[in-house]
């Protein structure tokens, strides 16, 4: 397909490592690591989604938790209606609940995409710091909405009693669920690579580097960015739906601004704009949280120090460290 560069080798290696982790965990009798690996895959997926907006488009969104949470709530709400056998009532029409992952994913992406289109239409009129803050504010808005809307648990959140199903798999088996998430992650990475190398991707990256020049060749940066933002929101919403299934629980904390911050952290830890950067970042972050959290209650203090170190002194992130500097700006 393509000539394998050093970066692509690193990407393949990381993916192989992630795939090997749960099998090793089971072999060495520590099945909890399967859950950990699943978490890595899902957070990695969310970061791949954000990377389309942030890495390719240069759109520093501090509000992607909104899409993550919305995806989670779509999964939770559809599952709860499937459980209670009562259709959702939208006034004009009703919609039956569902406990089938493909259906849930479709709706999560649809709703996430619509929300991203609405937020993007207003936010993308601004740029730079305004964009960061306005996306943050919109995410806060959905956060407060979720907390105070009583129908689906509000602050208490919503439990999914049985993990949703996927045709041909028993999803309650941790390894099966991991494989599903891993499959989605790989699909998203392929999509990311395709976008990056497409004409659309080229225009998006060009708009990041020089808006005036793109506009002068007759491409409207706003529309390109909006499409990227919506795509990005859809993938993050999908990750949210999977995350809800992993925890069998969804709550407003998925919408909190700390979550948005964590997504950015994942990308930076791994390397901005890199194909496998988000995956590397997610693997590093989850391991870090788990290992350091096991050593000290003050782990966030040290996480902060490590992040500072990465931002100030190791700008390429983990992939940058392994694969060397990127060739283009």
């Amino acid at each position: 397909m393509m000539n394998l560069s050093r970066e692509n080798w690193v990407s393949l290696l990381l993916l192989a490592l992630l795939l090997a982790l749960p099998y090793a965990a089971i072999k060495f009798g520590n099945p909890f690591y399967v859950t950990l690996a699943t978490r890595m895959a899902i957070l990695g997926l969310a970061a791949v989604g954000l990377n389309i907006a942030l890495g390719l488009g240069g759109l520093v969104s501090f509000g992607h938790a909104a899409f993550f949470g919305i995806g989670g709530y779509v999964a939770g709400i559809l599952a709860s209606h499937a459980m209670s056998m009562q259709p959702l009532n939208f006034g004009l029409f009703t919609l039956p609940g569902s406990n089938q992952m493909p259906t849930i994913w479709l709706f999560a992406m649809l709703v996430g995409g619509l929300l991203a289109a609405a937020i993007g239409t207003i936010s993308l009129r601004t740029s730079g710091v305004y964009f960061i803050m306005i996306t943050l504010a919109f995410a806060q808005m959905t956060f407060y909405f979720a907390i105070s809307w009583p129908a689906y648990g509000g602050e208490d959140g919503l439990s999914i009693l049985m993990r949703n199903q996927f045709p041909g798999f028993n999803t309650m088996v941790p390894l099966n669920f991991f494989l599903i998430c891993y499959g989605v992650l790989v699909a998203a990475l392929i999509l990311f690579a395709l976008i990056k190398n497409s004409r659309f991707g080229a225009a998006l990256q060009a708009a990041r580097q020089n808006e005036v020049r793109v506009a002068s060749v007759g491409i409207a940066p706003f529309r390109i960015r909006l499409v990227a933002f919506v795509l990005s929101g859809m993938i993050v919403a999908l990750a949210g739906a999977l995350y809800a299934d992993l925890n069998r629980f969804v709550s407003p904390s998925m919408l909190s601004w700390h979550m948005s911050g964590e997504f950015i952290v994942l990308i930076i830890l791994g390397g901005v704009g890199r194909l496998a950067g988000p995956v590397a970042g997610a693997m590093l972050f989850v391991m870090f949280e788990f290992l350091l959290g096991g050593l000290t209650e003050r782990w966030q203090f040290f996480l902060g120090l490590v992040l500072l170190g990465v931002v100030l002194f190791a700008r390429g992130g983990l992939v940058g460290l392994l694969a060397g500097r990127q060739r283009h700006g």
Partner: protein
Amino acid sequence: MQTALFIEQLLNGLQLGVMLFLMAAGLTLIFGVMGLINLAHGSLYMVGAFACATVAAYTGSFWLGLIASLAAAAAAGAIIEILVIRRLYERDHLDQVLATFALILVFSEGTRWLFGSFPLYLDIPPLLQGTVPLPGGSRYQLYRLAIIGVGVAVAVGLFLLITRTRLGMRIRAGESDREMIGALGVDIRTLYTIVFALGAALAGLAGAMVGALQSVQVGMGEPALILAFVVIVIGGIGSIRGALVGAVIVGVVDTMGRFLLPQIFGLFMNASQAGIVGGALASMLIYIVMAVVLAVRPQGLFPAAKG
């Protein structure tokens, strides 16, 4: 009685706005001069509150605590400027967001390390306890009036500082042309440290004053930070005047929304329902206002000279 209540709520909105102005002024000043977005501003607010509570508990004097809050927040600001922030001026916003996000983690967990997990106690000084009568027969808390007074004084002071002093002249020069003032022989590094410490001190002052009204605890700065963001986005980032106007808008809209929305919904649903729906809408109201302002004026109400 209804008019008196209305006046009282307006004052409450103004007081909240003034408090937000102290936060927002520092944020917007730092952005205007150095082009830096500082998420850790809320941590400096927390530092101010903790310093005030600790010194007040130790010495028994709120006023010493207030001085300590200014000093501690300014010192913390200067230290992080020299150690971390200084390296971020030439970086893009992404790096700034991340580095200052990391600082929040360090500050929050570090404060918990030093002070433990339980909230601290800080009371209003005896001089400012009690209430004063309002026209219409209601009463208003003296301390809240004092906060409004301090806020107005700070606003005037900042205005004078920026328009009338040498430091202000350099700040204005720094806003319009960074290389130029360097060429003119102004020590730009020191200038930046001073501006950052000034912004930090304002946040610390806000934290100390609010700390006497609320609980002094880790994480107290984050809600204030996000509101301050909304304020400067509405007002126009980099503009002190915009921060003042934006702060008053946010303060009044938020307070009035919490006060009036449940009553409005109460006209056509039962009190319990109205409270829930009105409350839910009130909690989103300022974000809706912000979206509307940005839809009309993407650079805020008072766009600064440069984005």
